[in-house]
């Protein structure tokens, strides 16, 4: 009887210790890594080096705004006359962009203005840029968190 009682107490102690250990592990674990937020990257097939920047300060939720996309070759030469397509959306909500942004102007030095961008919700957005130029067609996906 006494030894059975001891075993019960011991089992409780072990369970409590296990819970304590798991609590410490859980509470101190780093947060899940977010998406890659780099604003400069090479296109998927490696044809171009792309970088993006909002034209007038960081975008605010719900406001129509513009971005500037800079397209260069991997050697760093600006790419002129490229056709830029714009897509994207919210991967966690399985919907696209709330607007239909377009490349509306070439600003020189490989830079293109993308107008009509809007982030209607807070959260993780993807901006997918397609580039067609004499060197070929390629694309890159940028992650943005609002």
């Amino acid at each position, binding site marked *: 009887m006494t030894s059975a009682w001891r075993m019960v107490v011991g089992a409780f102690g072990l369970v409590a210790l296990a819970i*304590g250990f798991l609590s410490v592990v859980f509470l101190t674990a780093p947060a899940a890594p977010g998406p890659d937020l780099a604003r400069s990257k090479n296109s998927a097939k490696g044809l171009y080096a792309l970088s993006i920047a909002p034209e007038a300060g960081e975008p605010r*939720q719900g406001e*129509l705004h513009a971005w500037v996309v800079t397209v260069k070759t991997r050697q760093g030469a600006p790419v002129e006359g490229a056709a830029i397509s714009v897509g994207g959306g919210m991967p966690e909500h399985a919907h696209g962009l709330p*607007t239909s942004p377009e490349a509306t102007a070439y600003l020189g030095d490989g830079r293109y203005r993308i*107008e009509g961008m809007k982030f*209607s919700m807070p959260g993780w957005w993807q901006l997918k840029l397609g580039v067609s130029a004499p060197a070929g067609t390629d694309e890159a996906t940028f992650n943005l968190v609002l």
Partner: protein
Amino acid sequence: MAGGLLTNLIAAATITAALAGCSEADFTDAEKRTIVSMSLSALAPLASDPTNSFADDPGAAALGATLFFDTGMSRDGNVACGTCHKIDRQFQDDLPRGVGVGETNRRTMPLAGVARDPFFFWDGRRDSLWSQALVPLENVLEHAGTRTAYAHYLKRRFGERYERIFRPLPDLSTLPASAGPFGTPAEKAAWAGMSDAQREGVDRIFSDIGKAIAAFERSLVHGKTRFDRFADAVAQGRAPSAEDALSAEEGQGLRLFIGKANCSTCHTGPRFTDNHFHNTAVPPVAGLPADRGRIAVVDEVLADPFNCVGKFRDGGEEACGELRFMQKSSPELVRAYKTPSLRNVAGRPPYMHAGQFATLEQVVNHYATAPKSVEGESEIHAVALSEGERAALVAFLKTLSD
């Protein structure tokens, strides 16, 4: 043993919090940031409307208020904007579908904060507040009037006021008493028989009527509620006063609203809306004409002669970004309807674009169970919410009314 102690402490803290009600200390820093972002105090000042030169003209707003409540602005003299947009009922009418000359197909929308929308109506079929105001005037189920009839009426009743604010009125004496593009066959024929210059003169007066009504509607704003006073206390890092504190249930509802229940994904910011259109599988109403939501009106807003790129816009075309870059063909637009603001929502059943749900409980159940859409894909995913959690969400929504 330390682990057991920790477990006990967590349990004790949870019980204490539940007993003590909900204080700002219960929320994480991330939750607090979201709560503060939904306060009316976080609302930016109302932007100017460069497409309407009279948007902030007090004389235009006063004339707009007169017109808004004037039943003379209808075919039979019985319907004003204020008939459905009732001033003492949040500018809505408590009916599943608004009733003008006849019953419409859509729920009357409340108007507080409406000037901040990029698109108007449940489906966004107009792109400015002033062009929106024109549609019910000619809709056969609403005011059912015609363009020349409104021009004659305006000149007769308010001509002097109009000319003082807007411009000299043209000679209307040779125009048909009632003619317009949406009237009876005879009225349409009379409209077609007018010269281009005559039609443009009438359209100019008609667009000014919309601009006056819009100027008035810009003054309709939300008032602070208990939620806002609570959120302001959170923003200032102080405990809310006793009357502004949220109960444990309301606090639980708030945490669900911005967390597990995913409500704030679309009902975001101080107006609790993302100003966008979503298919959330709200069921159609039996007996009403087919209703495909946003996708059905894309061509209409692009072709509207009173839209932003039309000749009745004031200011430059750079103000037309919303129309220029709007989504035009995405499958997500099928049966997509505007995310309504949730401010004061508890005081205005029934809910949804055709008054499909009688209570907030039904609305919450709809979003928790996430049925399939009759057409297109619903963006909603089911969330396991207990009876208590659903009640907590409703309790929280009521703090947007007090």
